[in-house]
């Protein structure tokens, strides 16, 4: 263990520089987000993740945001265990009808001001699962969405670009 710690202390860090902010995400956010509310957050975002029927592919990539390559917490962004502690709900999946009420209740439990980020192609419009008897068809069909991050699943770097856009809108870039 000593060797691992020494290697970590003196080795080159694996963490990569922040990616450029996603312009499309900025444009989407600029339309709907209240700058004044954002300023109150400073540069800190607490995220509650809600799987509303994903295949778990998105969860794998959201998990990867915490690994040493992306190190999400250096930006002041962290995942929290309760919606009551969250500024942002990050929702994946096409919203199954069996999860619809749980998603609405989670949204209601999140204090204002709050934002919803829909992650993945299914969260956008139901994706491959659109039209199913068991699917509401996208997060915006159930709760208002401030930012969509597309992809099946979106790579961690794309998730990061979207989240950084959310931070930068609040602080004026």
């Amino acid at each position, binding site marked *: 263990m000593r060797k691992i710690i020494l290697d970590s202390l003196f080795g080159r860090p694996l963490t990569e520089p922040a990616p450029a902010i996603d312009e499309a995400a900025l444009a989407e956010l600029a339309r709907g987000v209240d700058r004044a509310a954002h300023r109150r957050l400073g540069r800190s975002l607490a995220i509650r*993740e809600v799987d509303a029927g994903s295949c778990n592919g998105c969860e794998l990539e959201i998990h990867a945001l915490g690994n040493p390559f992306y190190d999400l917490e250096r930006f002041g962004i962290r995942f929290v265990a309760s919606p009551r502690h969250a500024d942002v709900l990050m929702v994946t999946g096409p919203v199954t009808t*069996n999860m*619809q009420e749980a998603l609405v209740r989670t949204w209601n439990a999140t204090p204002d001001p709050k934002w919803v980020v829909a992650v993945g192609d299914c969260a956008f419009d139901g994706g*491959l699962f659109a039209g199913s*008897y068991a699917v509401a068809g996208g997060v915006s069909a159930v709760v208002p969405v401030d930012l969509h991050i597309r992809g099946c699943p979106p790579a961690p770097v794309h998730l990061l670009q979207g989240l950084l856009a959310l931070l930068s809108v609040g602080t004026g870039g």
Partner: protein
Amino acid sequence: MSATVSSAEAAGRAAMVLAAITRGAVQVADHRPWQHFVVDEAGWRRAGEALRDRYVVLLGYWGETAAVSLAIADDAMLQVLVVTFECERGSFPSIAALHPPAARLERTIGDLHGLVAEGALDPRPWLDHGRWRRPGPTSRGQVGDARAPYPFLAAEGESLHQIPVGPVHAGIIEPGHFRFTASGETVVRLEERLGYVHKGIERLMQGATPEHAARLAGRVSGDSTVAYATAFARAVEAALDVPVPAAAHRLRGVMAELERIANHLGDFGAVCNDAAFALMHALCGTLREQVLRCARRCFGHRLMMDMVVPGGVAAPLAAEGIADIRRLLAEVRDRLPALIDLYDNRTSLQDRTVGTGILRPEYAALFACGGVVARASGRDVDVRRRPGYPPYDGLSFEVPVRHEGDVDARVRVRIAEVQQSLSLIDQLLEGCSGGPVRVELPQPGAVREGMAMVEGFRGDILVWVRLAADGTIERCHPRDPSWFQWPLLEVVIEGNIVADFPLCNKSFNCSYSGHDL
């Protein structure tokens, strides 16, 4: 089956039992590679009794508009059989009444198809929470009532309390509900309620082309996308009796083993993280990320989604890809010993994993579960070896088995499987040559059926498919390994403390999406 019976005797007895089940039954003409019979009520009951008496193991159990089917095999997985009972009166004799591990699959048949299991002990719905917009895949079913309370099984005694958890969990994981009954810190009973991520995948597959259905199959459980896409492709290829180029089999093998390595590394780190040992999580996360980046460079997608297609694989592997994967293997080989050493020498970590969440071998055998969960509890199964499929039939590998059945054993089986996968990819790359990697699928011209089993990182995935004469999917049933593992999680947590549930759960790592469909 008593332990004194030799495997040859057991195989002989299973053959007799299978013959008895299909006595006088009608064989379905175009079903490959295993036989499929339509049995009468007596034959169906004999199948249930064979399961009850442990002459055969349960591989799958699914329904259709007016029929139910069982996939069964002998314990050695050498004789596989599909039997179907046609439910002329909208009902069928319950298999779960004879063999309880079939219960959740049987409740699902009721939810999705409206068929009634006669004599079933548990009439509660399973995937149907009364919230679907219309009934399941067939029109006979009725949507349940969302307002009706779901009666959890009782646990009575002095000073017992309930802890409801989920469907929205504290971590970044899938949704499901766990109802704990605890006496102080000790769990007396856990009951799961699943179905929250039911997407109606089977219905979406109906009428789809094999290419489109393969994309759906690859999203039954995203962490096993290669294994699912391969199982689906193999079932379609079996139905059409179409041979796939050897190079495609090899690339499927490379991708499947990369997927196994990535997931096992993730689980290894995650189990340690649940014991508050975050360093291992960071180190394993780094290695896992390197595997995913290599997959992205070589196959164009980090999780390798949609790379396996019916008829072969989507694209060949370039020469630089082979060198890239070899560098990755060297990196993992270089780093892994330090991680194993770190795990071995942390008594605080071992204190949490050793002796925690013990799955007794008799339960693993009763549920005929697969994967790491089975192999850490003495059950020596791996469908790569038996029944076997290409490219593994020409490769040498070991199936690591342990007998302790605790969290530690499941961690150690995963590590040993990573080492086997490294060797398997070595062997596969050795023989990688040019040549076609995909063939066109022929038109079936008639109804044809196929079935395949593929060893994902979680265990054996079964896909059964029936193609219509025009080549579209008439009915497809993918069965996740989690079906036979989730119920066992309820068993292993009993008598453990609530705080050890995350460790037990992570060491199983069952799929919610794969189970809920």
